[in-house]
């Protein structure tokens, strides 16, 4: 975990720095009190920077003195799965968000169910598109038809 601590610490230091830069740019307001709108954000950025630096130092010290406890790959997989597959899931999700406003809810959500099911290991058969279409129809029925909550209509807006 020491290597991950160092990486996380460096990442958080960068976040703290960027956040601090934007906090410094918060405009002063005539309604401001003694602290101002940028007061708490600046304090948070400094605190995060200090804590992140301590993570880096602690992890670095553990690595340098060979006290870093090695990660058990099997335990790690049970805890966090596989990062590559997680990244692919994120891409599938992002694809859904990019397409849903154009293609509309029903088609895109059916495509999402089908893509995720295939990616997670279901074998291809006629059942896959059938389950995806059924799932999309169930969700549309619950949200749009029964609860009256609209979902993105996409290009079909004029037709519905």
């Amino acid at each position, binding site marked *: 975990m020491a290597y991950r*601590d160092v990486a996380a610490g460096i990442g958080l230091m960068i976040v703290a720095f960027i956040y601090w830069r934007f906090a410094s740019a*918060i405009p002063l307001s005539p309604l401001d009190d003694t602290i101002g709108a940028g007061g708490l954000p600046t304090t*948070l950025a400094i605190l995060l920077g200090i804590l992140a630096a301590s993570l880096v130092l602690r992890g670095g010290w553990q690595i340098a003195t060979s006290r870093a406890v090695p990660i058990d790959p099997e335990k790690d997989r049970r*805890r*966090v799965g596989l990062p590559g597959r997680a990244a692919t899931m*994120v891409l599938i999700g992002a694809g859904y968000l990019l397409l849903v406003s154009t293609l509309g809810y029903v088609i895109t959500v059916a495509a*999402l169910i089908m893509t995720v*099911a295939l990616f997670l290991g279901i074998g291809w058969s006629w059942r896959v598109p059938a389950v995806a279409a059924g*799932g999309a129809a169930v969700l549309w029925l619950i*949200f749009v038809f029964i609860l009256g909550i609209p979902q993105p209509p996409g290009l079909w807006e004029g037709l519905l």
Partner: protein
Amino acid sequence: MDALGITWQALTTTPAVFAAIGGVVLGIIGGALPGISASITMALLLPFTIGMDPTSGIVLLASTYVGAEYGGSIPAILIRTPGTSAAAAAAIDGYEMQKQGRGGEALGLSLVAGVYGGLVGIIVLVLLAEPLSRVALLFTPPAYFALGVLGLSVIATLSEGSAVKGFCAAIIGLMIATIGADPMSGAMRFTFDRPELMSGIPPILVMVGVFAISELLVQAGQPAWAKAGGDTRIKLPSFGTMWKCRRALGIGSFFGVFEGCMPGAGTSIASFMSYNEARRWSDKPEEFGHGSIEGIVAPEASNNTVTATALVPTISFGIPGSNSTAILLGGLLMHGLTPGPLLFTKAPDVIYGLFGGLFVANFAQLPLGFLVLTPCIWLVNRPKPYLMAFVLALVFTGAYSIDNTIFDLWIVLAAGILGYLLRFCGFPFLPLVLGLLLGYMVESNYRRSLLISSGDHMIFLQDATAAGLLGAAVLLVFISMWRNMRQAKRARQEQESSSAAD
């Protein structure tokens, strides 16, 4: 007598009873699906509560928590895959009983012990919550600020992982809470001229992302779970059997009360402590691990006791003890109900409606446990890829329902990535969620206090309640640092002695 009247009115003038029954059903189903824990089920339901009246919305979430704790034991007993982390203790003896052809008996014991624990928990909740409401008069803006700081310190230091990581997560939560209009001057912060960000990032979106999406990302890299089979008909235990387990029931509910009232402890610790102590005090300790009925009763009573007692710090002080109660806290905030001592005087109908709803939920659990079991087993036996795909679709659909904007879905996805990264690097979730929920309270009361004192920070020491709470927070941080250093020293000594032995 007033409280009983308010409870009756809340239950009869709102659909809270239906919300309680629906919550238990959905909770059992959600808890029974490995990977979809109580908190994820609650996060999925959170968007639906926006359109409900506050009492029904909060009762729905709390009842889901109740149902999920029993639901989690179904796959734990049948396929040795706990649906919730707290059900892992019940899997030890429950699965042994299943292998011996006594799975139905184990499910019955789990159900009855859960109902017993839940009822004990509600009694404690009602008894403790009322006196705590009298503390309301002591709270001034400095005290509210100090309460927020203490809450964040408690959760950051007691959550899994190191305290430094806990505090980092809390600060990230506070940082997200600063996005949008400044609570005092109205100046825009971190909005980048995006109109969607001007009112801030709704905590509900971050919670759905951090809990549900990150779990789906983890599940994407994990193998499918086993299929449930064998004896799956519930057999309720006789009164004589439960009488034999009275000591285990007592131990379970004791730890449920104790751990539930302690912020940051949660159901998992309570159930494992109950299991260990039940074995220590049992007349037949040798049966533990080989299908002991006490080994199921103690952790299951403890889990369900926590579902009620964890609400004590949540609704009294705004400090949730677990991920599930953090979502409940988010539900309260969403309905404009500020958690804390004043909640009892400002919204007694919601609070007493919640108590009544929990009673209904626990009693309803007995018949619903029978009715929902078959659909649960059917769902558990469905291919995991379909279930995960459907849950992802449900997350996006539910999140879109909040404000009908795709921008919200990007926030959910980003929060999911953040949640995954936090898990990957061993950071706890709860401090982040709490920082997000308490951010407004901490900042606005801090600045309000300084306005009162014309910028003098001594106000936090002059106010006795604030000084006491801040003192407790500092003490907690020092104790945590000392504990961490001692643990590191012990681990180093163990490593050195093992390498010397090699």
